[in-house]
């Protein structure tokens, strides 16, 4: 089993709702965004085109961040393929940051709160994910595919990708329904079927990381 995501570039409008939803879900410190929205352009006026592409940790099947970590703080979970960080063992050497070709790992330092007056109630809670950001200071953090929601799914017999409370917040927030979440390891499953139908692709295939996030082209 490998949790993965499909992002349809034909539907994505670049509204950034997914980035905001992620920020709210995890209450990440100032400057840290697990989910970003990048863009790329091709052509020249009057034949120019811009595409927006939400990006985040790809939870790669061959993650380069895992073998380099000297403390095994970064690990790939066997049962579902999530790439996670144990902040109790992270020494903050940032080797994993240098190893990730996608720039999806973040060092927690500096200003933790967004407003000088102090932490907001949401920041104190660590968002719905319940992160203890003070404990994570000087360690590396990243997208978790809303692992807390997947855990809730397992405890309550819900289906991630189908049931809203069991699906990553970015996926359920998208107003264009541009994202799908599910098991990408099943060659006959609905995720891989959709990838084949629409000729989906991954980012930086030359890095040979085998990302679990697939993009569907705008065609």
């Amino acid at each position, binding site marked *: 089993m490998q949790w993965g995501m499909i992002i349809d*570039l034909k539907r994505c409008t670049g509204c950034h709702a997914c980035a905001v939803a992620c920020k709210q879900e995890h209450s990440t*410190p*100032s*400057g*840290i*965004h697990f989910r*970003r929205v*990048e*863009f*790329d352009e*091709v*052509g020249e006026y009057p034949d120019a*085109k811009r*595409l927006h*592409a939400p*990006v985040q940790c790809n939870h790669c099947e061959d993650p*380069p961040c*895992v*073998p*380099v*970590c*000297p*403390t*095994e*703080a970064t690990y790939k979970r066997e049962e579902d393929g999530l790439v996670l960080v144990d902040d109790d*063992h*992270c*020494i*903050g*050497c*940032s*080797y994993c*940051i*240098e*190893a*990730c*070709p*996608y*720039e999806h790992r973040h*060092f927690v*330092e*500096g*200003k933790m709160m*967004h*407003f*000088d007056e102090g932490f907001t109630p949401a920041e104190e809670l660590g968002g719905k994910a319940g992160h203890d950001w003070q404990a994570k*200071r*000087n*360690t590396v953090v990243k997208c978790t595919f809303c692992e807390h929601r997947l855990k809730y799914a397992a405890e309550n017999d819900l289906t991630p990708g189908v049931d809203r409370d069991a699906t990553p917040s970015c996926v359920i927030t998208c107003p264009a329904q541009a994202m799908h979440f599910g098991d990408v390891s099943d060659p006959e499953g609905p995720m891989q079927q959709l990838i084949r139908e629409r*000729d989906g*692709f991954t*980012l*930086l295939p030359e*890095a040979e*990381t085998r990302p679990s996030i697939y*993009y569907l*082209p*705008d*065609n």
Partner: protein
Amino acid sequence: MNNPTSGQAATIAFNPPSWGNRPRLQKKWDWRAAANFIAGGGAGAMLAFIAALATSNLFLIASTFFALALMGLGLACILLKMGHPFRALYTFKHVQTSWMTREVLTVPLVFGFGAAAMWWPEQHLFSVAAAVAGLAFLYCQAQILFAAKGIPAWSVPQIVALTILTGVAEGAGFFAAAVAVLDTALLFPAAVVLLASLAARQVAWGSYRRAAGARKMPKKSMEVIDGIGRFLLPFGQIVPMLLAAVALALVVSGNAMVSLAPVLLGAGGLLAALGGWVLKFNLITRGGYTHGFQLPAKAFGR
């Protein structure tokens, strides 16, 4: 810029998000990380030259002490850089795949055997063991850079040979400087190894530069790489090679000016080390641009 309504200072200036698709310069591995590569690599190789060529106990003790102190300085810089230095013992955990763990494992061997070599300089085996551990440390450093797939300039395969051979050249440079000060009887072999290691570094640099140029490399990384080359060739390679060659010629000929040989060799050695330092410092702190973001043509339906 202050918010005109609340006077709230801009919050994003401190930790700016990486919006935008251009390659970014990595900032996490700064001068402190570069210091470990610089100090440790040259020190590790210097131990090899000491083990191979030292003939006097005084020279062995003093030069080994210098090498260990240099390596220790680099490691201290790394501790300053770590987010949680008091968790340093965890770094021994992942020897199966992590070159950083393997590098850390060589450290007690380098210092242990190095200290034993200083305490029992007659027991050549300790010096040899320290040398082997020092070269292993250098090799691990080279692999650490190569495994950093997020930085195109570091993940060129030829960086392994380049990192090793510049470490060897720096070690030979320090060895030559130590010989110039402490034991001029070793001028001949020190000059020979310095010349040979500088030649090897030049070959490795050329190979790395060609390979980097042939890959999809951020433009700014290539600018830094070419800038390194503009300094390295004249000041880090040609001048030290000339100085070492003249020193060698003076020693061999027994010329009246042979008393200048230690000065020339020492200066050549220090310049050789400086060349390596410039190479590593710039490659790590100024050449470390990321891949950036780009969609393939098929994404646009073209």
